[in-house]
């Protein structure tokens, strides 16, 4: 089989994953899209491993690593999604903006150098 077939399939898979990550609003579906991207990478690794006839099979070994890490990652991600849903009754990524950085927090670099000035600033508005 020519290497272009798995490569094109992987590219398509990856694009679908990117679209999902960027456009989906449900956190679970975002996670699934990430898995799609990882799957595309694995496919590439294995395909090019076979294509280059690597004697040490570095691609296959790396794919195994990726699978193991993806398993761990999805476990963590689902746990976070579950906890977020329990506390907020939503997992819409657009609605979850608690970790947004505000303007005054952005001045942390300055506040480290001049603590009292920064504190005064924070009180002002």
């Amino acid at each position, binding site marked *: 089989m020519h290497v272009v077939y798995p490569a094109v399939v992987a590219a398509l898979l990856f694009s679908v994953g990117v679209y999902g*990550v960027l*456009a989906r609003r449900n956190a679970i579906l975002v996670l699934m899209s990430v898995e799609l991207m990882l799957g595309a990478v694995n496919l590439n690794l294995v395909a090019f491993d076979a294509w280059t006839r690597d*004697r040490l099979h570095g691609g296959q070994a790396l794919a195994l690593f990726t699978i193991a890490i993806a398993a761990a990652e999805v476990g963590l991600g689902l746990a976070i999604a579950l906890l977020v849903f329990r506390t907020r009754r939503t997992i819409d*990524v657009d609605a979850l*903006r608690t970790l947004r950085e505000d*303007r005054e927090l952005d001045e942390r*670099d300055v506040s480290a150098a001049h603590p009292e000035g920064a504190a005064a600033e924070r009180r002002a508005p």
Partner: protein
Amino acid sequence: MIALAAVAIVLPFLGAVAGLLPAGLLPAGLLPGGPLSGGPSGGRLSRLALGRPRATRAGPAVVAIAPVAVSTLLTLIVALAVWTDPGARTRTLAVVPTGTVPFEVGVYVDGLSAAVAFMVCCVALAVQVYSSSFMAADRRHRSFAALVSLFTAAMLLVVLSGDLIVLFAGWEVMGLCSCLLIGHRRARVALLGFLITGAGDVAFLFGIFVLGVGAGTFSVRGVLAYDYPQATAIAGTLLLVAGFASRSVRCSSYMSHMRSPDVRSPEVRSPDAAVAGTPAGALIHATAMAAAGVYVVARIFPVFARAPATLTVLGVLAGISMLGAALAALVQDDLTMVLAYSTISQVGYMAAGLAAGARDAAIFQLLAHGAYKALLFLGAGCVIAVVGSGLLRDMGGLRLAMPVTFWSMSIGWAALAGVPVASGFFSVDAILAAVQHAAVDHAGGTAPAADSAAPGQGIAPWAAVFVYVALLLTVAVTGAYAARAWLMTFFGERRAAPGAVPVSASVPALMRWPVAALAVPSLVLGFFGLGSAVLRPEPTPTLAGLAMVAAGAGAAFVVWNRDPALDPARVLGRPVRAVRTVRTVLARAFSLGGGDERALLRPVRALAGFAAAADERVVAAAVEGTGRAMRRLGGPLRTTAAGGNPQAYVTGLLAGVAVIALAVVVFR
């Protein structure tokens, strides 16, 4: 036969794995338990896991002893087969491609490796039998036995491996095991030593690389057959010797941590079984660890024979270390420590033999030393068990109380000192003769000794003379410390240490009989050397050696006889901590292996401080600066209306990646 050798390597490894398994995974019969053994962990866990308290006491011992026993049998068969039909046999079991020079997993058996493998197995077997009796009440016996098994497997791998890379793997596992065995008592010290002397192992590995890449193969056969240019041979072998030397230094500094605790000092609450278990740990170190370096040199000796500079360096190192270690052994107040330093000194003998080009003599000494040093270490364990203290000043007068141990250890000390007809006499004599040949024949301009490659290829003449003088002095000092330890242990008045609690009133049979059994090879092994022309005693070195032994032992006896209650080493000055008398310098082994690693620590600390400063001021500053600059740059983006939406961030990220990729494609 190759299969037998391979199985002999794998069996102790399996034993180690079984010994380290969690208690719940083992069948009931193999668990420690019962009223006498099995501490809180083993016994209770087994009961919890299996629902019944039945567990035999012999379980851990079987796991520890059986694999090593079978391995001993297998290596004996292999050794006999090689003896009847000499010649090297090798087989590759698997080739591991690496991209450049591949290495192969295989076995290489010849007379040298078969004999050393058998010796290793015998020593390991003796240690396992002995410690299974000794540490039966200690809940850490299982892990100790497992570590000794792993050590044995690694050593057998070093000895029987057909490939230098695999040999190095065994070498590293041995280092790890030695670290863990020390860690049984002092974890931090062990870790420190492990880290510091890792540098030596790197040198060893690079030596292997030089030789392997030069020959185009890592297999022992290929390396032996390849005709190295002299520069390559010198570079590779010098790196190997550096690794060997650093391993020996580590070994000696480790063994100083094997010192048995002083029963009088307040921090030692109860002198438990571990006190007398220390000789067993020290033994496996001494014989296996130090022997491994000598073995590696002997294994690829033809390469060393092409590198006269390396032989000279090896000879000088050997001369210094054998004399220094013998002097250190002379003043130690701990029986285990006397033996530990004596081992370093004896390894110096072997290295001297190798440097003089007499491989057979060095291996002869290696085997004989394995036998009598095992005897002495295990005998010391018996003595310590009965006395309840490891210090020489607490012993004395044990001649009648423990006759079997007394006679066995007498043979052992005689062999160590080189008293005629014991094995050490023949082996030390062969080395003396070889070094004398190297020194005299070079000076006379004739051909060098036994099996070095070509005229003018051996050790430098001045170095040979130096080694010869050091050897003679060491023989005298060896006689002195052997006589001192022997007299202080078994003769004179019986002394009792205040506060010392004997572990057992008499020596258990399982501890006594390994010692007695080892006395046989210690006594008769020397006669095997008579069959070889190279190893037969010659008149001049024999007489010189005998005179030196008599002088050393006689001096020790004369000083001891003046007042048997005191330590003969008192003539070297009183043991005062702060004052730098001859004695304190020696007792700390020239500060090299004594109590602390200060000599090694200081440069390492300085280097680490420099590296940390460079890291902080240069690397970390650059990294943090980059991060801060990027943060400022991205500030406007983060605080727009979309702030907080991760998908917006990812979109930005991907757009950036796309721009960079495009730029690379377009502007390349």
